[in-house]
């Protein structure tokens, strides 16, 4: 009597485990997990991991458990190699990534040739979605959104705050001269001209610079009231410090992402010096949660899983993109590339419905047309959302 029972149970267990082994879908997680970009690469990947945890807790995709296979995109060549491995060896159904634009551009070409969907959740260069790829989709806001938001903030907040017409302001645009700074600054200049702003100086500089005093002097001499800087971390610190020490105090400094959003930058520059400096970047955490439903739950899940608070908004934006994509794939039947593409093309999420604030709807080129950045300001040593008004938790301060 006992023996047949045991046999039955063993048989049932085998059947269960066998079906469990079949019922999983593999996705690639391609990020720089080591090397120079490891810090924010890993931070980005954590957003994807939390999205997968939530999807699996809710029964997976089409009843199948999601399994992430990591690929380490430590440089462009390895990004290509790892994309190949994920596709042909691991047989992933789609790749999620990548944080770095250059690596995304390289790896997505491999995916395109293999006909595997590639979902970019965090890279900002124009070229990620401007190449006419069929299987490439990007959920996060990109360089153009950043340029637009910076100029909007100048026109709608900075100029009225100073009691001036936007056209009367003197704008100085400075940028690190790799493809990141160059493309964002070009969008800034385009939108600025469209809005009739007066650009008095536009200058690139190498990011690996140890001195920006001559650029500060140029801005001072040109009388720039508003400085727009697109930069990494070292050059953000250097500019803010050297401007302060040269006695140059523009009415507003607006940084574009990179170094401007990070706490160590504020600590390095000094909280008094960075006070009221503005920043446009991905949605961070000190934001009106009415405009970003689900943000608090995300932060809780993050803290529980990793034991610390999120280190930047990269994880949040990756989480939002990944979750929306996976939920849409859950509504389809099967994991064929074209089925997946059809499913994500049908996504239609309104603004104010995601934890990052922006909605999701893909345009013809695979770019999320509703993606938007957010305007923030350093106040009392903390980066708080100040623009647009719906997301603001504090008033935008204009000194002078």
């Amino acid at each position, binding site marked *: 009597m006992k023996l047949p029972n045991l046999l039955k149970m063993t048989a049932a267990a085998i059947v269960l485990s066998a079906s469990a082994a079949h019922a999983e879908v593999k996705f690639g997680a391609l990020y720089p997990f080591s*090397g*120079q*970009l*490891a*810090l*924010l690469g890993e931070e980005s990947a954590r957003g994807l991991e939390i999205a997968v945890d939530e999807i699996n807790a809710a029964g997976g995709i089409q009843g199948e458990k999601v399994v992430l296979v990591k690929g380490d995109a430590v440089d462009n060549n390895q990004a290509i190699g790892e994309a190949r491995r994920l596709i042909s060896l691991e047989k992933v159904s789609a790749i999620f990534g990548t944080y770095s634009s250059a690596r995304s551009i390289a790896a997505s070409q491999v995916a395109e040739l293999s006909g595997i969907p590639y979902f970019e959740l965090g890279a900002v260069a124009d070229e990620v979605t401007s190449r006419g790829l069929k299987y490439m989709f990007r959920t996060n806001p990109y360089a153009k959104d950043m340029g637009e938001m910076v100029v909007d903030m100048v026109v709608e907040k900075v100029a009225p705050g100073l009691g001036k017409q936007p056209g009367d302001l003197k704008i100085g645009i*400075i940028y690190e*001269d790799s493809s990141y700074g160059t493309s964002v600054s070009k969008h800034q200049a385009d939108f600025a001209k469209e809005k009739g702003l007066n650009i008095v100086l536009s*200058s*690139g*500089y*190498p990011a*690996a*610079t*140890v*001195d*920006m*005093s*001559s*650029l500060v*002097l*140029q801005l001072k*001499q040109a009388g720039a009231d508003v400085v727009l800087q697109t930069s990494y*971390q*070292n050059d953000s*610190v*250097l500019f803010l*410090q050297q401007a302060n*020490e*040269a*006695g140059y105090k523009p009415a507003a400094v607006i940084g574009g992402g990179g170094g401007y959003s*990070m706490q*160590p*930058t504020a*600590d*390095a520059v000094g909280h008094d010096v960075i006070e009221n400096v503005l920043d446009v970047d991905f949605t961070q955490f000190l934001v009106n949660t009415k405009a970003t439903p689900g943000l608090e739950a995300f932060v809780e899940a993050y803290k529980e899983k990793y034991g610390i608070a999120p280190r930047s908004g990269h994880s949040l934006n990756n989480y939002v993109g990944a979750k929306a994509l996976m939920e849409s794939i859950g509504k389809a039947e099967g994991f064929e590339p074209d089925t997946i593409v059809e499913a994500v093309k049908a996504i239609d999420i309104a603004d104010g419905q995601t934890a990052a604030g922006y909605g999701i709807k893909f345009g013809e080129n695979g770019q999320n047309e509703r993606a938007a950045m957010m305007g923030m300001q350093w106040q009392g040593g903390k980066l708080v959302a100040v623009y647009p008004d719906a997301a603001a938790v504090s008033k935008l301060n204009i000194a002078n």
Partner: protein
Amino acid sequence: METFLQVLVSGLMLGALFAIVSVGLTLIFGIVKVVNFAHGEFLMLGMYLVYLFTTKLGIHPLLTSVIVAPLLFVAGVVTQRFIIQPLMSARDDHIQIFATVGLSTALINLALLLFGADIANTPSSGLRTPITFGPVRVLLGQLVILAVSIMLVIGLQAFLKRTQTGRAIRAVAQNRAAAQLMGINVNRIYMLTFGIGAACVGLAASMVAPLYPTSPNIGTYFVLTAFVVVVLGGLGSLTGAFAGAMIIGLIDSFAGFYIGSDVREVVVFGVFLLILILKPSGLFSNRLSLSHVSP
């Protein structure tokens, strides 16, 4: 006129910064004749040590030099003894270059592992205080760098000319084989010189760290300019390197202001190439130069 003066002074301060970083490289390049691509990473290492000593033990950044310079001396001796020396007899000198490139990459990634990619802030302890001379502003820390780099060049020059060890070092630089025949322990001299070169970078780190945030790749910001300075100065001439650093600092500053920050590297390296074409041995190769006779 006021702006001109400010650009001039900024250029001199930048030159002093390049000088203090390049002095050690001049010794290593001019005497051991090793193209040390890990030079910038020695600086990075020194800056992290300064960061640790200031933030954990509360020591003033300038005072950390009495600990950091000896530590870097040891690092230099160890590098010479265990990485460069075994390769000295290799048939091709280029192997040493690859070894230093390897060391450089290894040190950058070690720092990434230990400290992460984020910047580390050494407290400025008053060194960022601006000082005004009429219309011109400089930072206290920049003046310290200028003063220390001048003293360092004078001190090392005296050491090389006046002391027995210094003469031995110059003898090795001029002709390794002949020096060995005269009873000089060449390997010991190389270790000593590499150590002194690295200690100079350690000293530089104590001055530079309070002014620039430290990150694993901070060395790469300096190393290319340091090589330019050393070559311009005539490969192994300390005063030449100092003058070369000042020239590069001034060109950088003036080109940055009067032409534009995006082209200043074009101007700096353009002038550098021009000087090399007109005077291939560098601007200041003279009898004091350490390397006008190859080994």
